[in-house]
C-alpha cells in the first residue's frame, strides 16, 4: 500500500511543499520543482507595478502542480479574506495558505485573526492551511473551525534556524488530528528529515532552497531528506540508550575465555 498524504480532495506522493520566492530568476523554478519532486507550491498576490513591469510567476509553474497562494501582506483577518477571494477568483483553485502578520521583525503570525479567517474561508469551501505559532490551543480551535491542516513554525520565516520549537511541534503532532505541516525556519535537509521522523505530515520551505549556492541541487536534497524522514517514521526508530551495546557478538573472542566474563 502506498503512503500518501491526503489534503482536501488531493492525494500527494511528495510531502515537500515549496515556495517560489527569493529566486534570482523565476526561470529557475521549473527545475527546482522537478528536482524537489514537490507537488504543492506557494505563490503570492501583489499589485502590478506599472513603472517596472515584470513577468508572472505562473508562467513558470507546470500545470498539475497544486497551487497554494498565500495571504502574505495581510495584517488582519479582513485583508487575508480579501486576498484569498482574489486568488480564488484568479483561477488558482481553492487552496489557501493563511498568513496574518503584523510583527515585521520576526514575522510571527497572529493566531486569533488566523482562526477568524480560517472559519470564514472554510465556510466558503476553501482548503485552508494556516501558518501558526506552535500553540496547542490555537491549533485545537483551527480544527474546530475547519482547517485542512495546521502549519506551525520551526523558527522565524526565512531564518534557516531549524526546528527551534521541537518541543511544541511534538505536542501538536501528538494532540492534533489534522496533518501537521512544519512551515518556516527549516534551514537544512536534516531539519526537514527530523521533522518527518517526529511524525510531521509534510514540510513547507522556500528560503532554505532559494538561499543555497546551488538551489536545484538543494531542492533535490530536500526532496530526498523529506522522503527519508517519512520512511524512518514509518519504519519505527530504534530506542536510544544510555549505555553502549556492541554491534558485534560479545562471545567467541580469540583471547582466553577468562576475559569473556569481564564483558
Amino acid at each position, binding site marked *: 500500500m502506498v503512503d500518501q498524504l491526503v489534503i482536501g480532495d488531493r492525494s500527494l506522493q511528495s510531502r515537500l511543499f515549496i*515556495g*517560489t*520566492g*527569493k*529566486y534570482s530568476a*523565476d526561470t529557475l*523554478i521549473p527545475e527546482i520543482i522537478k528536482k524537489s519532486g514537490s507537488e504543492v507550491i*506557494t*505563490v*503570492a*498576490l*501583489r*499589485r*502590478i*507595478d*506599472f513603472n517596472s*513591469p*515584470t513577468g*508572472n*510567476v*505562473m*508562467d513558470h509553474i507546470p500545470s498539475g502542480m497544486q497551487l497554494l*497562494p*498565500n495571504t*502574505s501582506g495581510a495584517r488582519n483577518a479582513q485583508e487575508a479574506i*480579501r486576498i484569498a*477571494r*482574489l*486568488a480564488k*477568483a*484568479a483561477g*488558482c483553485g481553492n487552496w489557501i495558505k493563511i498568513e496574518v502578520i503584523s510583527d515585521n521583525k520576526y514575522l510571527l503570525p497572529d493566531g486569533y485573526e488566523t482562526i477568524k479567517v480560517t472559519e470564514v474561508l472554510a465556510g466558503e469551501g476553501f482548503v485552508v492551511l494556516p501558518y501558526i505559532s506552535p500553540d496547542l490551543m490555537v491549533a485545537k480551535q483551527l480544527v474546530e473551525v475547519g482547517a485542512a491542516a495546521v502549519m506551525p513554525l520551526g523558527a522565524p*520565516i*526565512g531564518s534557516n534556524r531549524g526546528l527551534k520549537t521541537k518541543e511544541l511541534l511534538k505536542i501538536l503532532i501528538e494532540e492534533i488530528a489534522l496533518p501537521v505541516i512544519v512551515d518556516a525556519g527549516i534551514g537544512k535537509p536534516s531539519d526537514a528529515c527530523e521533522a518527518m521522523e517526529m511524525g510531521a505530515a509534510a514540510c*513547507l*520551505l*522556500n*528560503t532554505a532552497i532559494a538561499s543555497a549556492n546551488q538551489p536545484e541541487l538543494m531542492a533535490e536534497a530536500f526532496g530526498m531528506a523529506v522522503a527519508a524522514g517519512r520512511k524512518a517514521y514509518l519504519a519505527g526508530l530504534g530506542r536510544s540508550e544510555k549505555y553502549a551495546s556492541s554491534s558485534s557478538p560479545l562471545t567467541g573472542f580469540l583471547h582466553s575465555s577468562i576475559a569473556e566474563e569481564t564483558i
Partner: protein
Amino acid sequence: MEVVLNGTVANVDQEMNLWEFLLSKELNLETIIVELNEVIVKKQEWKTIILQDKDRLEVLKFVGGG
C-alpha cells in the same frame, strides 16, 4: 476623469471600458486579476464595464512567495 489605480491617481481622458483601459497599460491580460471598487471583476465582464470617475481599481498578479 480620474481613477485610483493600485493606490495612485490615474487620468482617463476619454470614456473607455475596463478592457480598453487595461490594454492601454500594455499588460498581459491573461495573467492579471482585477478588482473594481473592492469587487472582483471577471474577465468576461471587462468589455461591458465603462470606467467611472473616482473608480478604484486594483490590478494584481501572482509573484513568487513562500
